[in-house]
């Protein structure tokens, strides 16, 4: 086999081809090909996003509050996430209102955690804001939740009172359809 430098034979005569014009053709073709390659990658990325069935299954759910007695917590699932629906006792409501929220890790007043006129109902996503574990009901000194993974402590309103969690339990979008029925999502 031929070894060493290999050069195109007979290349010399055509070297007079307008260099600029040729470069333009090459650059245009390369650019055109690059656009196509990027476009071809798109479906491989898009398929990673939630599919239509998953999205449809994430539709809002309705929760009947009637069976939840005062002091009880009900767990429902929305978009594959646990939703804690807590019927706060009068005592818990009052303690929550009086607590000094300015010094908390993620300061939030009582009004920001519940809906107007529905002081006794807390609806939060039951996922610890630290690394995604599900906190245990009514554990820890604040009587709210305690995360089994790294010991984050939440009060009955789901506000984080002791780290390492950086934020309060998130409140999902929800609305009261009546006094005993909410729609989450």
């Amino acid at each position, binding site marked *: 086999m031929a070894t060493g430098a290999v050069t195109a034979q007979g290349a010399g005569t*055509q070297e007079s081809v307008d260099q600029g014009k040729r470069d333009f053709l090459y650059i245009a*073709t390369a650019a*055109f*090909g690059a656009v196509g390659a990027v476009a071809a990658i798109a479906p491989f990325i898009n398929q990673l996003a939630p599919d239509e069935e998953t999205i449809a299954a994430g*539709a809002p759910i309705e929760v009947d509050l009637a069976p939840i007695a005062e002091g009880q917590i009900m767990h429902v699932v929305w978009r594959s996430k646990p939703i804690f629906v807590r019927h706060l006792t009068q005592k818990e409501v009052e303690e929550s209102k009086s607590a000094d929220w300015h010094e908390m890790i993620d300061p939030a007043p009582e009004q920001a955690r519940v809906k107007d006129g529905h002081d006794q109902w807390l609806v939060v996503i039951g996922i610890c804001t630290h690394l995604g574990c599900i906190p245990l009901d009514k554990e820890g000194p604040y009587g709210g939740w305690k995360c089994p993974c790294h010991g984050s402590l939440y009060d009955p309103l789901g506000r984080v009172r002791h780290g390492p969690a950086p934020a309060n339990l998130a409140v999902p979008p929800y609305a009261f359809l009546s006094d005993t029925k909410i729609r989450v999502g």
Partner: protein
Amino acid sequence: MTFFLGCAGTETGTMKRVRLLLAAAMAFCCATGFAARAQEEGPAFVPKIPDRQSWSFAGPFGVYDTAQLQRGYKIYREVCANCHSMEDMHFRNLADPGGPEFTEGQVKALAAEFKVTDGPDDNGKMFKRPGRPADPFPRPFPNEQTAKLANGGAVPPDMSVLAKARSYEPYDWFPADIGYALWSMLTQYQTQGPDYISALLQGFKKPPPGFKIEPGQNYNEVFAAGNGIIAMPPPLQDGVVQYPKGPDGKPVVPETVEQYSKDVAAFLMWVAEPKLDYRKQLGLEVMIYLLAAAGLMYFVKKKVWAKVHA
């Protein structure tokens, strides 16, 4: 064959020649597969080849006719759904672009017409509730055995991909079969399924004399899979489904079996291939891109190789 043997005792010279000729022709037919079923008892069933219809969704630029799909859905809902499931379809799909394109509100209402089994509830019981857009179309029968029992031993096939699962070979002789296959490929003929379905729905005819039919069976001139015998009774009659009315109070399209058959076949094609519109649109863009790329590459190749072909 028995006919010829029966008169063998009294045959004349002419008859003998005819008989030999026919026997030779028959042997040829058997050998080449023309009359594969000729030896069976009774008159052989030769299925009618479905006529080729002109569909809005045929060809490289064809798209679904939304109004037709809506009419087709009405037929599915009022007629087919009583026996046929469509379990890969969800109510939400009725609002998808390139489909019947019902509005979100309409889809909610259409879904609620169906009762869907859900559960178990807190008491461990399954319960019925109105359908939601996210639900698949419920099955008319809870399981295959029930379906069989209710339909004289035949399970009504699921309709999710029915239009892609039906086909037929119009020619069984060389080289017409190859020619047909190549011609279909070249002309993008892909509507065998809906052609077949609409022909089948119109194929309930009076059986030819001598054709034996058991009670509970029906004759269908298109139904090759059952040699002309189908368990499904004729599902459509003129006027059974009300179509939308025009301003003059008359239906915009005729309420006939022929029109019903076409509309529901078109609907089933959409059910089987819901992304067809988008596929062809994307295909056009890709083809234009590739043609341009091929042109550019051609000139690049020519330029690069110009040095060599000096």
